[in-house]
Structure formats: structure tokens, C-alpha cells
């Protein structure tokens, strides 16, 4: 994975195992790389495996991008990332991975 930033990124063992099980390691690496390199103000990234739930019958790899809550109104990152992933991969790949943005207080609390 050719990540060129110093932004902290942690990937849970469960997410790593799921990516391997799905056989999408290369594409997943590109998604993480794109996340780290394309989102302004990005503080850190956590990648988790979310279990099947009431509104999703499959477990899903979720890339969580943390940004500062600056009160700037709606943020376009999630939409733009969704457009990029559709333009770049097949649904057989991207349907297993979601990316969400979470906004934390500027002092980190």
C-alpha cells in the first residue's frame, strides 16, 4: 500500500481477515490510500468490521474517517468518496466496503 501521509491509520484484525476472505486486498488498499491522500483536514482513520445488523444482512468493512468539527455545514467527503469508488471498482468489490466521516470537537473530546 503506497500511503504517503503521516495520518494515523489502524485496521482491526477482523477487518483484515474479512478483506482477505473476500480476496479484495489490492482494491481495499487503494481505497485506504485514496482516503488518506484525498480528504482535507483528515485526522485519523480506523477500519473496522461491522457485523450484520438489522439493516444489513452482511458484515461490512467500514472505513471511518475522523475530521475536526468546524461547523462548516454539510461536508462533501462521503458523497465524493462514494462517487470515486463507483467510478474505480466493480460493485462486487465496493459493496463490501463503506466509508463514513465522523466529526470530533477540535480539542479532541
Amino acid at each position, binding site marked *: 500500500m503506497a500511503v504517503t501521509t503521516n495520518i494515523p491509520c489502524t485496521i482491526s484484525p477482523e477487518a483484515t481477515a474479512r478483506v482477505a476472505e473476500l480476496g479484495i486486498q489490492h482494491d481495499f488498499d487503494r481505497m485506504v490510500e485514496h482516503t488518506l491522500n484525498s480528504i482535507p483536514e483528515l485526522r485519523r482513520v480506523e477500519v473496522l468490521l461491522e457485523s450484520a445488523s*438489522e439493516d444489513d444482512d452482511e458484515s461490512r468493512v467500514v472505513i471511518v474517517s475522523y475530521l475536526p468539527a468546524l461547523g462548516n455545514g454539510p461536508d462533501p467527503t462521503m458523497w465524493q468518496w*462514494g462517487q470515486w469508488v463507483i467510478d474505480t471498482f466493480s460493485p462486487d468489490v465496493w*459493496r463490501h466496503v463503506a466509508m463514513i466521516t465522523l*466529526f470530533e470537537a477540535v480539542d479532541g473530546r
Partner: protein
Amino acid sequence: MDGRAFLTVARELAAGRTAAHWRSAVGRAYYAIFLEGRDHLQRWGFVPHQRDPVHSFVRLRFDYAADPDLVMVGRALDNLSKLRNVADYQTQSHSFADDTEAQTSITNALRALALLDAVEADPVRRAAAIVDMRVRWP
């Protein structure tokens, strides 16, 4: 009631003053677009069986649609669904420090709804989308 009516409630919640308001707005935004998507599919002849998980039923039909705008609706559902789970269940999360997630969710739901409405309003696109879905999901 149309699913999009939930967007009015989402806006009211987004104008609130607490994390509980902003978190709740995310859920209403998700359900607005999910219900609209479900009802569009129903009008187009795609009704889930009782055994089908309805959220996944809706999302997958858009994820694999031939029309790129419908694919984006699926993607918006994917991401809003995951954000809603954080908003509703992860009460220890330090996020939702302001209304940004709420405003973002409402904006994305509105954009997805506009894409869905555009396909619905265009008989040629709508017919092509339905034919493709019938082939893919016989």
C-alpha cells in the same frame, strides 16, 4: 406518508442544540431515502419476499443498477446506513460534536432523492432501469 417527509423531521432535529438531536437527524435522513427507494422499487414491480432482509434488498438493487445515478443512490444508502449505526448505537463516540453529520446526512439524502426522482420522471430511463433489474433479479 412519503418517506421523504422524514427529511422535514431530520431538518428540525438538525436545528436542535444537542448531540441527541443531531444523532437522531442522521437516522431520519437514512430512512427518508431508504423508504423512498423501497417504494420506488415497489412501484417498479420489485417487492421483497417476507424472508428477504428489506434493507439489503433495496440497497443491492441500486448497487447493481445499470443507471449510474441509481448506483449512487445505493452508495448513499450504504454510507448513511453505517453512519446511522454509529449515531444510534455508539453513544460513547466523541463525534457528533456539532451538527455536521446531521447536515451532511440530510444533504446526501436530498441528493440521492433528486437522482431517484430524475429517473422516475424520465420514462425512457425508468423503463431501461426496470428492464435491467428484471434481467439481473429475475
